[in-house]
């Protein structure tokens, strides 16, 4: 039997890998992938708990909405990254430090 705790531990491990990527990467697209990893860990959590809620099905429906929101987030974030690259000629987040043009 696959227990709920197994799913939660896998989700925690993926969340921490995503957290490491966000904090330490010097490339905006890899930071974006780290954010996606954290989102996927949360969606795994939702789906694991959703198994015990068949009538309201809150877990799986929330997971579907989270996937759609991740898609919208990624599209806008990529557009912003491309614009920032056109302006600064680099996507190292450490070098993007001015508020004005």
């Amino acid at each position, binding site marked *: 039997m*696959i*227990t*709920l*705790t*197994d*799913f939660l*531990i*896998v989700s*925690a*491990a*993926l*969340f*921490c*890998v995503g*957290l*490491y*990527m966000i*904090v*330490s*990467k*010097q*490339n905006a*697209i*890899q930071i974006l*992938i780290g954010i*996606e*990893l954290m989102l*996927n860990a949360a*969606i*795994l959590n939702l*789906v*694991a*708990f*959703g*198994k*015990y*809620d*068949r009538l309201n*099905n809150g877990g*799986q*429906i929330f*997971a*579907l*909405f989270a*996937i*759609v*929101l*991740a*898609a*919208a987030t*990624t*599209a*806008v974030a*990529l*557009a*912003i990254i*491309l*614009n920032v*690259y056109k302006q600064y000629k680099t*996507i190292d987040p450490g070098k993007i430090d001015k508020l004005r043009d």
Partner: protein
Amino acid sequence: MSLAQLLFYIMAFIAIASALFVASTANLVRSIFMFFVTLFALAGLYVLALADFVAITQIVIYVGGILVLILFAFMLSGKETLNAIGQQPGRFISIKTLPAFLLAGLFLIVLVNMILKADADNLAWVKKAAVTKNMILPGSAMTENIGINLMTKYLLPFEAISVLLMVALIGAAHLSRKGEKQ
């Protein structure tokens, strides 16, 4: 150990190992392609959690939409962009990434400790769900359940998310337009 448990361990191992590879490689293209593997392994985990519709949606939208979008945005940039952001300096284990390691490692210890203490299998509502037929069984028709719920109980978030998608579409199209020649 049943076949489902064995499959769960295999999928979980693939997901975590490919996520570690995504985090550790300096080459951007390699990390994007290994992220494909992570997402497929996660879809397998969703199937094992009896969420088949979410697994198919994950493959169609996440792998087939979001990752392809990231790949396009990266590969269709100019040659200077590819050279500038393709290869990153720095190694995986170095003194500069030590704070990040500490943060992620300690947070993992906190989360695992909390999960083991919470003992999610023995929560009152979880145990009651198995008794009152509120649990998803391997034969349930989940797609029909999702369809009915989405149109009755969750109609407001459904409409709100369609407005949000339109806003995101307009925003992304506006942000990536060609600027006027200066």
